[in-house]
């Protein structure tokens, strides 16, 4: 703590510091010599391939994957072809680019994921050099082939290979090259001797960096900044040219006095910094070059690799892992010797306060007088974020907290979130986890991605802790982690299905927004169908279970689940699926056990596939429905013969269904149809398709009494009905003579009131009166009233001493004309009333 500035080195206006991140936990016998090495940015993992050129089967090269702290994540013998280049994707997958252009993708734990090829041209001409690059569109791969042509893919997850135009006159390997991202596309900058070419999709343009010293014969090395904004070139004269990547501006040119080509170059610049600088590495020698004439020199004890980061450069050697960066301004303000910045004063004040010295007050007063206390607190908080040592962080935060006491209404958010962030950062920087993120990187990366990385490394408990601590909504946080855990758990083949299922359900039990079907899908993909089914049982939304069940060919189960979900569309999906998958018999049998699905399918068949409907009923031996089916089909049929034969089929089916009634009714219909036909042949009357009643009505109305009589007998039409029919028909024709004959033919089953009524309806009171006498006593009053005979009605009513009837008659009498009658009726009513 005392010597925070001990490792600071000035470069122009700025200071640079080299912080040790880890002492490497790996044990590399031969250091980093003869290795292909790739380290992922944002404190990602490191991949190492030893002696990649070795091809003999007896001594295969070893591929090793380590965390940033050097603990082994994976190690296996490399059995594929010769690897030219290693690289990491944005989501921490390892890319191994072989000399034949095949790219193999492994996960962090060395599990093979997939591979793809960079195209035929690459296969033919082999890979000369390859680079892996990151852009907003994902991870890309660029290759220079043996024919000195560039092939490039901007996003390996959406592979589109582009072969860039030829560079004129390029007959040997370019001296150096880099991939740029400009104007939303990836371009390649390529140096050939002293010439620079910019290659994009369609063109190859020679470019000249402004102000590049003309003595240079060749550009031997180049590098692009993390943000693709800046470019640095190293010439054979030992000059470093720094400028913007679009080659429009020059920042500076510095003579390093070293002529040998550097092993590696990297930009070292923090975002928004005014002081860009480049780190250049040779064997044992590291140089930081800025815009000023000064440089910083470091001696390297060991073979080292530079890993450019957003806000610095990491240096990885066989023993150490360090971070070289520009000292952040907040830290510089506070810790610079003799700094009078408000933050520095506050830190001092707090120190004095802890010593219980009254000087604390003096310092405080000094800040407050300039009313810079808020600024001071902010500086301390910010500086704490940039410090790596927890002790320094604490000191700064305490000072901030101390300063906050003297401020009213100071927003606490910055302080609180910094405390939280630091706690999380310190946890992941831990040696065991080995993700040396800086605060700047963390903010850029977002918590979400950090959690993903932890999950990817199977650090589930830590991930859950982080989620809980940062109060991330369960759905995006804990539940997601648990889901990944479960997906990982189901891949553990050594454990029994039962055990895994139980473990998963216990852990996930109460978490919100867990999709068991996703986990089950994973289990199924690993070939654990039984486990998948067990897991699906935990899925509360039955609809979610269906697609997977179908995929697993558990169609019966899928069908019942779909029905359970109440979503008919889902049921229908399964039904359609089953229809195509199964033979007809099995399909129908399945439906038979599922009434909901069956009725749904029937509905469909009714409109789309009538014959299937019939088969469906046949399969079920549903004779009743088959009968109905034939009856329905018979209406649509125009030809009589076909109609009869359909009806005959219906009769057969009804008989099988033991529905005698329906069979009989259908037979009757057939008889009626035949009767209609005869009638048409004999009399030319077209009655086809009419009901029995309608037929009778027409027969009677056109005077075919004999035929009507015959129907009446043949079909055992009830007497009442027949009488009604004939009565109305005769009255309609006003055939009063026939009517009278009919009335006298035998005793009317419907009584004689209807006779009276039909006559009255036809305004023939004369005829009506003929029947009044025949009407039963109960209806006589009505009959008399119908023909308008009030006297008669009154007579009967009084005789019958029926109060209701008397009242009915009374209501029909008018006071003026029927005086006498009224009196009589009233008297009679009173008499019956008394009794």
């Amino acid at each position, binding site marked *: 703590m005392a010597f925070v500035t001990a490792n600071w080195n000035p470069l122009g206006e700025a200071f640079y510091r080299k912080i040790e991140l880890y002492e490497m936990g790996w044990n590399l016998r031969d250091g980093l010599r003869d290795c292909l090495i790739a380290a992922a940015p944002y404190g990602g993992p490191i991949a190492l391939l030893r002696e990649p050129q070795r091809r003999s089967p007896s001594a295969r090269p070893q591929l090793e994957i380590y965390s940033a702290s050097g603990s082994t994540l994976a190690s296996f013998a490399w059995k594929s072809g010769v690897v030219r280049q290693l690289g990491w994707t944005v989501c921490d997958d390892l890319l191994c680019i072989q000399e034949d252009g095949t790219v193999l993708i492994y996960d962090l734990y060395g599990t093979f994921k997939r591979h793809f090829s960079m195209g035929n041209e690459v296969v033919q001409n082999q890979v000369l050099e390859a680079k892996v690059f990151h852009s907003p569109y994902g991870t890309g791969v660029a290759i220079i082939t043996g024919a000195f042509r560039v092939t490039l893919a901007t996003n390996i997850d959406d592979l589109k290979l582009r072969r860039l135009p030829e560079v004129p006159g390029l007959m040997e390997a370019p001296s150096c090259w880099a991939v740029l991202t400009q104007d939303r596309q990836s371009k390649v900058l390529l140096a050939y001797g002293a010439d620079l070419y910019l290659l994009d999709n369609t063109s190859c343009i020679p470019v000249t960096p402004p102000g590049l010293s003309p003595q240079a014969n060749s550009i031997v090395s180049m590098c692009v900044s993390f943000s693709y904004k800046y470019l640095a070139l190293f010439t054979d004269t030992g000059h470093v040219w720094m400028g913007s990547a679009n080659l429009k501006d020059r920042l500076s040119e510095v003579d390093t006095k070293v002529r040998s080509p550097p092993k590696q170059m990297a930009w070292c610049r923090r975002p928004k910094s005014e002081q860009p600088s480049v780190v250049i590495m040779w064997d044992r020698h590291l140089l930081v070059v800025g815009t000023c004439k000064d440089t910083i020199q470091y001696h390297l004890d060991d073979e080292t690799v530079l890993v450019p980061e957003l806000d610095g450069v990491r240096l990885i050697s066989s023993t150490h892992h360090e971070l070289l960066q520009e000292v952040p301004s907040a830290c510089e303000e506070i810790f610079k010797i003799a700094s009078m910045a408000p933050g520095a004063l506050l830190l001092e004040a707090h120190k004095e306060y802890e010593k219980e010295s009254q000087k604390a007050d003096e310092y405080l007063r000094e800040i407050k007088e300039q009313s810079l206390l808020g600024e001071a607190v902010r500086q301390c908080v910010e500086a704490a974020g940039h410090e790596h040592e927890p002790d320094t962080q604490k000191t700064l935060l305490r000072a901030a907290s101390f300063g906050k006491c003297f401020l009213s209404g100071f927003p606490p958010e910055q302080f609180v979130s910094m405390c939280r962030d630091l706690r999380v950062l310190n946890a992941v920087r831990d040696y065991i986890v080995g993700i040396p993120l800086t605060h700047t990187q963390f903010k850029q990366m977002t918590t979400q991605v950090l959690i993903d990385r932890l999950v990817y490394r199977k650090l589930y408990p830590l991930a859950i802790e982080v989620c809980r601590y940062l109060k991330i909504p369960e759905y995006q946080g804990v539940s997601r982690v648990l889901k990944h855990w479960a997906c990982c758990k189901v891949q553990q083949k050594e454990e029994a299905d039962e055990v895994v299922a139980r473990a998963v359900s216990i852990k996930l039990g109460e978490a919100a927004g867990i999709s068991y079907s996703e986990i089950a899908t994973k289990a199924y993909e690993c070939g654990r169908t039984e486990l998948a089914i067990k897991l699906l049982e935990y899925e509360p939304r039955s609809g979610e279970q269906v697609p997977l069940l179908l995929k697993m060919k558990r169609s019966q189960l899928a069908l019942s689940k779909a029905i359970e979900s109440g979503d008919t569309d889902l049921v229908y999906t399964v039904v359609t699926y089953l229809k195509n998958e199964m033979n007809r018999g099995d399909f129908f049998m399945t439906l038979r056990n599922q009434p909901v699905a069956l009725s749904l399918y029937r509905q469909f068949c009714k409109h*789309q596939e009538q014959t299937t409907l019939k088969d469906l009923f046949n399969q079920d031996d549903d004779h009743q429905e088959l009968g109905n089916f034939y009856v*329905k089909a018979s*209406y649509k049929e125009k030809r009589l013969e076909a109609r009869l034969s359909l009806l005959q089929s219906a009769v057969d089916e009804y008989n099988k269904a033991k529905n005698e009634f329906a069979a009989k*009714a259908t037979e009757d219909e057939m008889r009626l149809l035949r009767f209609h036909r005869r009638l048409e042949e004999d009399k030319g009357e077209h009655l086809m*398709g009419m009901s029995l009643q309608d037929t009778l009505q027409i027969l009677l109305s056109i005077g075919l009494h004999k035929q009507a009589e015959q129907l009446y007998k043949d079909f055992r039409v*009830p007497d009442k009905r027949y009488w*009604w029919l004939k009565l109305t028909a005769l009255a309609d024709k006003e055939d009063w003579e026939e009517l009278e004959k009919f009335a006298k033919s035998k005793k009317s089953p419907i009584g004689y009131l209807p006779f009276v009524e039909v006559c009255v309806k036809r305004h023939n009171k004369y005829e009506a009166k003929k029947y009044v006498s025949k009407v039963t006593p109960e209806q006589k009053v009505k009959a008399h009233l119908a023909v308008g005979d009030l006297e008669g009605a009154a007579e009967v009513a009084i005789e019958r001493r029926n109060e209701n009837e008397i009242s009915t008659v009374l209501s029909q009498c008018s006071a003026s004309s029927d005086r006498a009658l009224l009196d009589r009726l009233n008297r009679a009513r009173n008499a019956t009333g008394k009794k």
Partner: protein
Amino acid sequence: MAQTGWRDAPDLPDFSLLKRLARDQLIYLLEQLPGKKDLFIEADLMSPLDRIANVTTLKQHEVDKLYKVEHKPIFSTSDQLCFLIRPRVQTVKWVCDIVNADKAVGRFRQYKIIFTPQKFYVCDTVLEEQGVYGDVTTDEWGFYLLPLDDDIISMELPEFFRDNFLEGDQRWVTTAGSALHLLHSLYGPFNKLYGIGRTAKMAYESWRELLEEGEQKPQKPDIGNVFLIDRDVDFVTPLCSQVVYEGLVDDIFRIKCGSVEFGPDVTSSDKSIKVMLNSQDKVFNEIRNEHFSNVFGFLSQKARNLQTAYDKRQGMDIKQMKTFVSEELKGLKQEHRLLSLHIGASESIMKKKTKQDFQELLKTEHSLLEGFEVRECISYVEEHINRQVSMIESLRLLCLLSITENGLLPKDYRSLKAQYLQSYGIEHLLTFANLRQLGILVEQQPGETLTVMESKVGKLVNDKTAGKLTETFSSLAKKSNFRALSRRLTLVPKSDEEYDLRVPKDMAYIFSGAYVPLSCKLIEQVLERDGWTGLEEVTRMISGHEFAVSGGSNGGEARVKTDAQRIILVMFLGGCTYSEIAALRFLGKEKGLKFIVVTTAITNSGRMLEALLDH
């Protein structure tokens, strides 16, 4: 009125929001197909659509011509065709035919099908099978609810009844769930939900699932409680003749989407007039819930008032006359016009309904409800069939007979059926099969003779005439759920008391005091008891699926009786009648509640039975 002194019933929420939402969504969908287009509309969507967006609105959004979707070739010259249809296999096939016809002659157009309220998977299957899947684009118009009046919202899905209850096709259940969800998100959160019936339960569950998926914004509820009821819980009520004015108008003139077309016999001119029937119509609003016997009285009173208002003109000076003309006359004229229409309608109804036959018909119905003189009722029905009075009416009486008697004796069942077939043709064999499947018209099973002593005794007590003992004994052999329900819930008031229809004392007034609708009685009882406790026997007889649960996430806290809690949403799955709505309005007035009726469609005996025919 049994209870007075209630506070004024709370105001109803504003349902015009539903219309606005539907309209905005439709416009959005139409604009997805830029440029001039012809719009083909499913026939039964025309009236509902008219309520949401009229022709002018459609034209504003580049709809060129409007057609009905039919099964015939089209004569459109437009290059863009838009179809607005229900998700029915038949209609989709028609659309496919149109597309295929175009293809056959090498004509290229843009086709877009808008399904409302949602698309079913089966529609895609049909498109695929007909080979036009790639040629059309599809969309969904989530038009679930159409407010017909301040307190009536219809889903306008008449096929719900047949599909769900007869065909066992549950596809519309989720639609009902979504409709409920829409209401919940706009007017919720609900405090408590009650329901009875299988479909009600499923609709409730479907709503629950939607609720869990989405988030409810905390808001002040407009609707407190919800009651879901299946139509098959109570078939008796819709089968009875309606005698409340609005119901009668529906039975006779058929109200379509809240408006009715009065023919020349009503308008006493040679034209038909279309009238909107809702609370905006002042005259109608006063008589809609009245028993028909009172309507004339009301109307003549109204006519007198109107006359008085007109008479004010006498003795006015010029200035007064001016204000009269500008302020009152228009209203009076409007009222006058409506009044004459309703008087015309009433007269027309009178002509049809007050004949001897109608009285006898009602008498028979009431006897059936009471279980009284059943043999005579059967002969009445028989005569009804024999004389071919009306196909649907006869069927209605048969069904009513079967339900109230819990099935017909095998002998009666056969003979009535045979006679019906003779009258109306053999195709009704299928109708009978449907009715039997639904349990509306069935044969008594020979084994079902066990009836408890209690019912025997109850029966004897109920029948006031001892002379009807033989009658009683013949019907003893039947297990009668309706009868038992009717006794337990006292659905049929004692008939010896005079029932004053002018001053109704209970919901039975909607059936001339002869019967309290079972559906509404259940609602009343459950609301009173705040659940189904004490109604176990009743639910067992209805064969249940009843539930009573607290609603949204924060339902438990609101213990205080807020206004919203006195607003009850009743959702009828399978349709409800205007009589039931009138009964609920009456109940609301009695208890200081307001009922909102949501129904899959407005129904009546005619519509219900027609849905069960097989053509």
